[in-house]
């Protein structure tokens, strides 16, 4: 399926504008911006009530979103696999998406790069690229579904995250696995999804080392979650029991975002 043309306002998509706004605005104003989410626009239904209780409504919506995290966790079946596709169905070119434009993609030097480990992990030795490449790898052709609604099929290869977590002696009874990235991005996932057989620490795209735009040198590829839960340019991985949130999650996108 081809990525559909997104809505453009002055040449920028809604998400790009959102990115701009949250990057540019100071924290205080950002809260006012979030209040925009209770604007009912043309729908006259209960406008007065809702607008005068903007903060309360936002609080309620965020509480329901957290409750939806739990509902999705209960619905998540660790044995159900995401659909896999033949290579002929891969989307070419694969659409680029990040919280910045393609011209700002970070260039990471693979020679100096190391994956830092933290949190509830027994062996916190950092991993360099050759040692990660030496581990058993898996390859899969799956659909990446963006929170915006579009989707694209690609082929990623790498180390099953569950294998890696067991190898480093991670506490797999902990609640969360979090990721920090070179571009300042952060995200986190629940342990059950981290241990799903299709969740991989991806080193390759389409059989070749990840190109910078796909998140060189390492990205998470988790076909049971929305695209923004697949962080690129990973610098660190940690295991924790305290809710880590994430770049988009902290701004209001649902944390679990399972598929």
């Amino acid at each position, binding site marked *: 399926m081809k*990525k*559909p043309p997104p809505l453009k306002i002055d040449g920028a998509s809604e998400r790009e504008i959102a990115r701009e706004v949250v990057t540019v605005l100071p924290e205080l104003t950002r809260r006012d911006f979030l209040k925009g989410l209770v604007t009912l626009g043309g729908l006259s239904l209960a406008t007065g009530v809702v607008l005068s209780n903007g903060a309360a409504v936002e609080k309620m919506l965020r509480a329901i979103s957290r409750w939806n995290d739990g509902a999705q966790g209960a619905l998540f079946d660790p044995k159900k696999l995401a659909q896999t596709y033949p290579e002929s169905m891969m989307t070419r070119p694969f659409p680029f998406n990040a919280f910045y434009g393609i011209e700002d993609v970070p260039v990471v030097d693979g020679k100096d790069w190391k994956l830092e480990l933290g949190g509830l992990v027994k062996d916190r030795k950092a991993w360099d690229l050759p040692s990660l490449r030496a581990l058993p790898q898996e390859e899969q052709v799956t659909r990446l579904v963006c929170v915006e*609604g579009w989707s694209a099929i690609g082929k990623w290869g790498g180390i099953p995250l569950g294998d890696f977590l067991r190898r480093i002696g991670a506490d797999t009874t902990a609640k969360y696995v979090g990721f920090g990235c070179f571009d300042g991005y952060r995200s986190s996932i629940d342990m059950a999804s981290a241990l799903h057989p299709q969740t991989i620490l991806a080193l390759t795209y389409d059989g070749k080392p990840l190109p910078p735009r796909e998140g060189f040198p390492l990205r998470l590829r988790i076909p049971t979650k929305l695209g923004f839960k697949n962080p690129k340019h990973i610098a660190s991985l940690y295991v924790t029991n305290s809710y880590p949130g994430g770049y988009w999650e902290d701004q209001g996108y649902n944390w679990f975002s399972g598929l």
Partner: protein
Amino acid sequence: MARREILRAHPWPVRLAHWATVLAVGIMLASGWRIYDAAPFYAWWHFPPQFTLGGWLAGALMWHFAAMWLLVGSGLVYVGYNILSGRFVRQFWPLSVGGLLRDVGDVLRLRLGHADLNRYNTIQKLMYLGVVAALVVIVASGLVVWKPVQFPFLRMVMGDYGGARQVHFWAMAAIVAFVLVHVVMVVLVPNSLRTMTNVGVKK
């Protein structure tokens, strides 16, 4: 039978489910339009932002995934009550082609009566069953868009993730079309609003 004597309110579970559905559908339409606009799949169509809810994509998603519980809850109340009480059979049966042709003929001659508001004519039966069917389809396709991995059978039925998005869109269009006709009919037959509100009806 005289008109005044047969103006009775619908049973309270039907009224409750109706207005809860109105609220849920209103929220889900307006927030759904904002979500669609984040990545419109028809080059010829997007929704004017002033008719959307949520302010931005994350806000719209929060509204959408909050109101879905209300929609499913009121749907269960409506379907559950109607089946258990036997009202489905009473209100929607018999459903005949002859009855439909008669009703359509009456409409064309501007003679379709609503003398007894508690008994649906054939066009009403089809409209109400149709919107219930559209709501079932929109929930089923919505489940696939939301959770394509967890509902593999529905995903296959809907034509994978991309197909489910389109089914979801067209079920939305069917519901909007129903709402437009329905609201016009309520304006033309204002007593029908009394049967759904229990205001100004014989107790």
